[in-house]
C-alpha cells in the first residue's frame, strides 16, 4: 500500500508568486495514496531537507514527490535526502512546477490547477516506482583533449600534472591555435608567442601527454568513463621518426604560391611546410591538395630527393587509431568573419580593407612584413588607418546579434601598435560602445585615447569605397549631433565577428553535444555549469563555447580540467541505474522475449546481447535478448520497439509512463 509524501516548495517567491502553493499541498493531500502533504518555503535548504527526512520517518512514507524546480536542478539533492531517511532514492520524483509552470504563467487559478496536475502526474509515477540500485563501472583514467590552442594546452597540462594520461588531437600541423598568430596581447602588450611557446614545448615534452597533430577525431562512442574514440591521423607524408626539421625541403619546394593560413592569407607558403618557425612539432607536412607530386601524377618529388634522412614518403595513407578515454575536453576554438562578407565595405574587393587577424600578422615580427604596418596592395606605410569596431557583431540584419567580446580591446591594441610604430600616423576608431570590463582593461583603452592620440569616433560606418587611391570611409559622429564624417584612409581594419569554426557542427554531432544556432557549443547551464555539457564526461574550454579572451579561456580550461580530474578521482564510477531489462521468469516460460532482436538492431550502444536459454539438461531452448547494464544508457528506444513488451526501462517503465498519462488526464476533482 503506497504511502506517498508530497512536498510543495515556495522557492521563496519564485513559485508562490503565481501558484497557490498551500492549495496545491492541501489538494494533493487528498489524492489516493498520499499519506502526507505539506508546503514549505525552501525545500532544498537544510531545514527543508530535514523536514522531508523527518516526515518520511514519522509518517512511514514509501515514496515522495517534491513539487519544486526542474529535476535537472535538484533531483539529486532530494534523492539523497530520501536515502538518508532510509528509503530507496528512486522512490523520489520531482514535479517541475517552477520552470514549467510558475515562471511561465501569470498568477491565476489555471496556473495553480496546472501545478496540481503536474504534482498528481508524478504521484502516479511514484506509486509505480521500483527500487533501483546504482551500477558501478570502471573509469578509464585517460583524457582526450580536442584542440591544441591555448585552451586545449592549459587543460592538457593541468590534467597531466595531476598524474593522468592525456591524448591531445590537433587538426593543423602544429599546436598553438590563434594565440600563436597574435603579435601582442592585451592589456599588458606581452609578446603572445613568448608566453605561449614555453607551454607548447611543455605539452610536447610532458611524459603524460600523447600529442597527435594533423589529426582529427573520426568518431566517438561509449559513455562517461568509457569512451571509445577513433582518431584519424592524416597522412603527413613525412616520417617524423626520421625527420630532423632541417628545413631543406620547404626551402626548395617549387610550389610557392599557396595562400598561407598562418598569415591569414597575406603571404604564401610552400606545399611542404611548417606553419610557423616555432611550430610544435617543428617538422613539416605535405599539403597534398596543393602538392605537384599528388596533383600532377608523380611530377616533381624534389623534397624527397633533397631530404638528407630520406624522411619523405609519398605512399603513406591516413591511419585510424582507436583509443579508450574516460573524459573529453572540447577546445576546438573559433574563427572570424572575413572582409568579403561585407557588402557595404566592398565585398572584399579592396586588399587594404583587412580584418583583425590580418592586422595581427602585419604587426607581428614573424609576419609577412616583419612587423611593419604596410598596405597589402603596394607595401607602402599607411598614413591614416581607420579601425571599425563592431563590424558585423551586434547586428541582427547580418545574423550575428551577439557581441564578440574581444574586439573593443584588440581594436584599441591595434590602434596603439600602429601608433607605436608610426608616431606621425593618424589612427581613427569608429565605435558603438567600448566594452573593456576586465582587469586593467579600461585603463588600457584610456591609454590609447590619451597617450597614443587615437581618435575615437562614436558612430558607425555606412560605406567604404575607393577614390583616387584613397579609401573613403563614410561614417557619422553621433556625439557631435550626428555629423557626417568622411575619412580618407590608406588602410581600414574591420573588427569582424567571432564565429564558430566551419566544422563545429560536425564536431558537436560526433560528440553528441548540443550547440546553439550560431554553432557555439552549449554549456549544461548558463550560470552554474559553464564548462560541462549535457553529455556527461564531455567538457568545454575556450571560444568554442562562446567568444572570450585569453584569461577567461585559460580559466575555463583549468575548470574543465578540474571536472575531469574529479571524474578520475575514484577507482570506479557509479552510474544511474536507468537501464533497460528484459523480463525473466521461472521455467517453463523463462521469458516472454521471442528472440527477434529488433532491440539489438536499434540500440545505439550495442548494449543488447544474445543469451542462450537452456533447460536443465543443457539443451538450447531459445535465444533471448539480454541487456548489458554497463553499456546501456537508458534511452528506451528498445522498449518502444519491442513488439510484445518484454523489455522495459527501469525508471521510465511502461507502467510508470501509462500511470503518468492516466493520472494527468483523470483528475478526481477540479
Amino acid at each position, binding site marked *: 500500500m503506497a504511502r506517498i509524501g508530497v512536498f510543495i516548495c515556495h522557492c521563496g517567491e519564485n513559485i508562490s508568486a503565481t501558484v497557490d502553493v498551500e492549495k496545491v499541498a492541501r489538494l494533493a493531500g487528498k489524492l489516493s495514496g498520499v499519506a502526507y502533504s505539506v508546503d514549505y518555503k525552501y525545500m532544498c535548504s537544510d531545514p527543508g531537507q530535514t523536514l522531508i527526512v523527518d516526515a518520511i520517518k514519522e509518517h512511514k512514507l514509501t515514496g515522495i514527490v517534491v513539487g519544486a524546480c526542474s529535476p535537472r536542478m535538484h533531483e539529486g539533492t532530494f534523492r539523497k535526502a530520501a536515502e538518508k531517511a532510509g528509503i530507496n532514492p528512486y522512490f523520489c520524483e520531482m514535479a517541475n512546477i517552477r520552470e514549467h509552470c510558475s*515562471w511561465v504563467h501569470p498568477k491565476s487559478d489555471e496556473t495553480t490547477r496546472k501545478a496540481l496536475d503536474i504534482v498528481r502526474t508524478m504521484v502516479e509515477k511514484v506509486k509505480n516506482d521500483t527500487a533501483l540500485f546504482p551500477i558501478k563501472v570502471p573509469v578509464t583514467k585517460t583524457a582526450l583533449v580536442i584542440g591544441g590552442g591555448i585552451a586545449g594546452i592549459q587543460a592538457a597540462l593541468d590534467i597531466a600534472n595531476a598524474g593522468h594520461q592525456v591524448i591531445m588531437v590537433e587538426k593543423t600541423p602544429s599546436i598553438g591555435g590563434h594565440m600563436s598568430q597574435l603579435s601582442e596581447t592585451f592589456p599588458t602588450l606581452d609578446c603572445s608567442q613568448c608566453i605561449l611557446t614555453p607551454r607548447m614545448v611543455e605539452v610536447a615534452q610532458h611524459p603524460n601527454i600523447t600529442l597527435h597533430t594533423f589529426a582529427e577525431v573520426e568518431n566517438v562512442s561509449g559513455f562517461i568513463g568509457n569512451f571509445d574514440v577513433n582518431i584519424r591521423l592524416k597522412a603527413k607524408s613525412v616520417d617524423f621518426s626520421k625527420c630532423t626539421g632541417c628545413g631543406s625541403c620547404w626551402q626548395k619546394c617549387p610550389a610557392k604560391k599557396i595562400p598561407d593560413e598562418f598569415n591569414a592569407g597575406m603571404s604564401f607558403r610552400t606545399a611542404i611546410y611548417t606553419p610557423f618557425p616555432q611550430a610544435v612539432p617543428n617538422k613539416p607536412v605535405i599539403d597534398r591538395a596543393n602538392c605537384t607530386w599528388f596533383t600532377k601524377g608523380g611530377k616533381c618529388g624534389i623534397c624527397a630527393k633533397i631530404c638528407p634522412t630520406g624522411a619523405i614518403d609519398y605512399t603513406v595513407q591516413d591511419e585510424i587509431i582507436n583509443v579508450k578515454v574516460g573524459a573529453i575536453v572540447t577546445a576546438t576554438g573559433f574563427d572570424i568573419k572575413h572582409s568579403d562578407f561585407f557588402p557595404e565595405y566592398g565585398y572584399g574587393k579592396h586588399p587594404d580593407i583587412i580584418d583583425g587577424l590580418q592586422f595581427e600578422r602585419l604587426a607581428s615580427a614573424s609576419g609577412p612584413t616583419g612587423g611593419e604596418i604596410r598596405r597589402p596592395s603596394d607595401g607602402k606605410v599607411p598614413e591614416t588607418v581607420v579601425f571599425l569596431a563592431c563590424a558585423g557583431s551586434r547586428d541582427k540584419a547580418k545574423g550575428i546579434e551577439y557581441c564578440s567580446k574581444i574586439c573593443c580591446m584588440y581594436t584599441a591594441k591595434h590602434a596603439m601598435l600602429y601608433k607605436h610604430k608610426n608616431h606621425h600616423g593618424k589612427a581613427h576608431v569608429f565605435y558603438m560602445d567600448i566594452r573593456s570590463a576586465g582587469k586593467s582593461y579600461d585603463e588600457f583603452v584610456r591609454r590609447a585615447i590619451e597617450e597614443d592620440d587615437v581618435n575615437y569616433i562614436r558612430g558607425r560606418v555606412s560605406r567604404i569605397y575607393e577614390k583616387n587611391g584613397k579609401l573613403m570611409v563614410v561614417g557619422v559622429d553621433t556625439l557631435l549631433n550626428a555629423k557626417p564624417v568622411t575619412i580618407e584612409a590608406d588602410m581600414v581594419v574591420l573588427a569582424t565577428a567571432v564565429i564558430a569554426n566551419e566544422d563545429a557542427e560536425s564536431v558537436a554531432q560526433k560528440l*553528441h553535444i548540443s550547440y546553439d544556432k550560431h554553432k557555439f557549443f552549449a554549456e549544461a547551464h548558463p550560470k552554474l555549469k559553464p564548462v560541462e555539457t549535457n553529455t556527461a564526461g564531455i567538457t568545454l574550454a575556450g571560444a568554442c563555447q562562446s567568444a572570450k579572451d585569453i584569461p577567461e579561456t585559460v580559466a575555463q580550461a583549468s575548470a574543465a580540467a578540474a571536472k575531469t580530474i574529479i571524474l578520475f578521482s575514484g577507482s570506479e564510477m557509479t552510474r544511474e541505474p536507468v537501464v533497460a531489462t528484459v523480463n525473466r521468469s521461472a521455467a517453463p516460460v523463462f521469458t516472454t522475449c521471442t528472440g527477434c532482436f529488433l532491440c539489438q538492431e536499434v540500440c545505439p550502444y550495442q548494449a543488447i546481447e544474445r543469451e542462450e536459454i537452456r533447460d536443465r539438461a543443457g539443451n538450447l531452448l531459445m535465444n533471448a535478448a539480454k541487456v548489458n547494464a554497463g553499456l546501456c544508457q537508458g*534511452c528506451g*528506444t528498445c522498449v*518502444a520497439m519491442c513488439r510484445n513488451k518484454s523489455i522495459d526501462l527501469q525508471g521510465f517503465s511502461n507502467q510508470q509512463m501509462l500511470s503518468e498519462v492516466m493520472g494527468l488526464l483523470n483528475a478526481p476533482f477540479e
Partner: protein
Amino acid sequence: MAETFEPKIVAFVCNWCTYAGADLAGTSRTKYATNVRIIRFPCTGRIDFMLLIKAFQNGADGIIVSGCHPNDCHYTSGNFHARRRWMVFKSLLDFMGFPTDRITFSWVSAAEGKKWAELVNETTDSVRALGPFTEYKNLDFTQFNQIDHEGIAEKSR
C-alpha cells in the same frame, strides 16, 4: 454563454533537449499558454505511440511530441526511430480517419526556449480552433461488446 473552450495539450518530450528547452523558457521567464502538460521521457525513441492514443482516450485534445533535432540526439539515434515511427503511425491514423492535425511533431533543442513557447502557443491556438476532441469518447463500444466473438471463432474452425 458557454465558456471559451480551452484545449488540453499533452506534450511527450525528451529529457535532454525539449525538456531542457522548456526549462530554459522558464529560466528566461518566457510566458506562454497554460494549456500544456509535459510528460518526461529519456528520449523520444522511448515513446510508445499507443500512449498517445491513451492520452486522447482520456481527454487530451491535442498532443505535442518533441525531441532533439536530427543528428543531435543525446543517444545518437533515438529521435530517428521516433521520426520513422511517427511517419508510419501517422499514415495509419490518417487511414483510420483520426484527425492527425491534433498531433504536432517537432524538434526543440535545449537552447531553444523561445521556440518551445512558440510551439506551445501555436499548437494551443490550432487545437483550440479544432475544438474539443469528442469523437473518440463518443465511439459506441456497446455494439462491439454485443458481437458474439466466440460464435464467430467456432464457425470458422
